């Protein structure tokens, strides 16, 4: 244990030195705050090159098997790297759907062939992944998806439409949940899961502009698109189970993600440092008793979240509701961040009204943009309200 600690410390120093040398400087154009907002070729090329560099140095997917491009190390090493990425204000590691959802899913449930075919390119950033779960009429109610996949010889013919396809316009592959049997008695049993190619005739991704003014989402249309039958992951009709497993990785309920650095880290320290310079009624904002009390509330929330992350590793302190802390991470964390960012964006006097692009905006409009961007977290991957239902039903045992 002591050896391990010493080894990690040495490793941290090594990583830190590497980052001081290699983290790219500000490119002079706006970089996305999260992987959900990669909207231009310029951003994509920049982030792709950065991910390749990090992986080549051996600092991405460190705990994944070496045969698939990982380092076969203890997860603690990747955690150190992620911490250092955040500390060095490094650009995000953008291929998140591949790195954090598809990769762990394949390592968990995939065949050897699937692992060999996909995982290394996820890590190197050479192949980008997107996710085809939500549909225009079925977001939170995922079991009701209508996109059809019909077997035809050695292919499935896909028709329908998926929405909120992050990175869809750049992606090489999609994890696709489609209905192969519309007559199944339980709607879930009619679903199948595909590792679908994106660059085939009949699949088109149309970018969608967001509340932040940026792009990153798409609506993806399938029109008689023929995808190889070999893309089916698991059994036909067994897609729901695979999709649910994917959501565990997406929501952070199950560990195994290649990197936690999928978004710019925004800490409570940033909030307080930025507010400290501001004034109200001719006095420092931070001398106002109401603001001080609000900040104590935010600091307590931040600390409670960090403490629960630690507490998860102490089973004796989680006997009442064993899965409770893990299943409420998203519910708590994303809502805290939304409120924290909104608060900071609204305590800047008249400058609260400025947005990215105005030279007088506090920190270039960072907080305003971050607040809007955060809805990606409170809506995507199951809305806060659906998360509340999940906690109520699966943790507390309340009826559906």
């Amino acid at each position, binding site marked *: 244990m002591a050896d391990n600690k010493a080894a990690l410390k040495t490793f941290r120093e090594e990583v830190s030195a590497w980052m001081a040398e290699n983290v790219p400087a500000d490119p002079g154009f706006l970089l996305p705050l999260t992987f959900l907002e990669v909207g231009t070729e310029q951003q994509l090329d920049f982030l792709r090159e950065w991910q390749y560099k990090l992986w080549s140095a051996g600092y991405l997917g460190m705990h994944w098997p070496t045969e698939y491009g990982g380092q076969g190390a203890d997860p603690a090493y990747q955690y150190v790297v992620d911490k250092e990425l955040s500390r060095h204000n490094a650009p995000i590691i953008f291929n998140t759907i591949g790195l954090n959802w598809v990769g762990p899913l394949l390592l968990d449930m995939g065949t050897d062939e699937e692992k060999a075919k996909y995982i290394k390119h996820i890590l190197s950033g050479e192949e980008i992944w997107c996710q085809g779960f939500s549909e225009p009429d079925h977001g939170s109610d995922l079991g009701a998806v209508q996109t059809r996949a019909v077997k035809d010889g050695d292919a499935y013919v896909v028709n329908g439409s998926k929405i909120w396809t992050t990175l869809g316009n750049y992606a090489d592959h999609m994890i696709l949940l489609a209905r192969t049997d519309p007559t199944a008695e339980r709607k879930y049993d009619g679903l199948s899961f595909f590792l679908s190619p994106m660059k085939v005739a009949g699949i088109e991704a149309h970018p969608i502009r967001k509340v932040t003014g940026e792009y990153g989402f798409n609506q993806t249309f399938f029109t008689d698109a023929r995808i190889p039958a070999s893309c089916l992951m698991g059994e036909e009709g067994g897609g729901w189970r695979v999709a649910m497993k994917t959501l565990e990785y997406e929501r952070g309920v199950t560990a195994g993600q290649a990197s936690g650095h999928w978004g710019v880290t925004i800490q409570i320290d940033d909030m307080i440092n930025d507010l400290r310079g501001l004034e109200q009624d001719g006095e420092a904002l931070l001398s106002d008793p109401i603001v001080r009390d609000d900040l*104590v509330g935010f600091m307590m929330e931040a600390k409670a979240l960090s403490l629960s992350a630690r507490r998860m590793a102490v089973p004796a302190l989680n006997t009442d509701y064993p899965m409770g802390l893990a299943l409420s991470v998203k519910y708590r964390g994303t809502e805290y961040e939304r409120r924290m960012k909104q608060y900071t964006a609204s305590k800047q006097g008249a400058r609260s009204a400025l947005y990215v692009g105005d030279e007088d905006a506090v920190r270039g409009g960072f907080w305003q943009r971050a607040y809007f961007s955060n809805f990606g977290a409170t809506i995507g991957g199951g809305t806060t309200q659906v998360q509340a239902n999940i906690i109520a039903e699966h943790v507390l045992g309340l009826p559906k």
Partner: protein
Amino acid sequence: MFSYPQNLAISLTEEQGMLLDVARGFVRDQAPIEVVRAQLETETGYESGIWQSMVEMGWTGLSLPDAVGGAGMGVGSAVPVFEALGGGLLGTPLLSTTVAGQLIWRAAGEQAAEWLGRLCEGQIGTVAFLDNSDWGVPNTGVALDASGALKGRKHFVADAGVADFFVVVANDNGSPVLALVERSALAADAVSVNVLIDLTKRAANVDFTGATPAHVVRGEAVTSALRDTLLLAALLTAAETTGAAGRCLSSIIEYLNTRKQFGKLIGSYQALKHPTVDIYVGMENARSFVYHGATIVADETLSTDAEVACRMAKVAADSVMVYAGDRAVQFHGGFGFTWECDSTLFIRRAQWAQQMFGDAIHHRKRLAALLLDAAAGA
């Protein structure tokens, strides 16, 4: 640059884990809710057999050192016990006795070994702190006069009706002192019982005028002992409150899973389901703070991290308990409004606990100073 000082230590020692299991088992077996209810309107508020068992298990000396007859397990070891007692809404003088022990030990050490030994053996001690109702002032209004007797009243003295002795926070020519007063030294009409909102607890106003202390603890250690003891008392109350919030949550879940309206279990309505989730999340937050506190408090003078932990634990526990108690009454509908429903016990506990050893505003003001001002130049 501001950097939020975050000590995130949280663990459970083998001893703490054992105490949690034992204490939970004890509450489950010895103190079901009927036993608690049977004491609501009695004079002492607890069953002597239950108290005797707690003494025999060594709980009154858990946090006191071996040298004075305690178990030497440190003050953090009391946290799981109080969490379990809170889960049973079990009112006993254990909190009073533990707090009195900490105050005497921190101010006088082994010089007060005899008094501490009495606590370990099961005598009841209690701290007489409040001059009126403000936890945020020194509360040293009671004075020692030239003849060596005390002059003045203390308010809200927990378990005053059953205490064998009192630790009176007083002043001697302006310096804070602890006056240890035997029950036998009180005047016949000194104790006037409070009508408390929480019927599982007992307190009284005590007039110490004319009482001569058997021992007076003086010196600089008194001030830091008072500061630390109030913080530890806040932490232990938070542990007890968190346990109560957990029990309150279970009672809500049970009712939502059995009561039907409009042909459906009421737990299927999101208007009831989602606030219940928020009670759960609040309870888990409080529990994290409480065990973080239990991990970092020490027998020595409390660090700033420990001070932050105790204050946050109290704020978090109060806030979830007030919410849980309030929603418990509401969610039980007409039944919730009746004496018969246990929700009435929870809402009363919530109102009692939130003021004890400083309410949320008291602690949040001090947290703001600790976190925003102290770190300003860092």
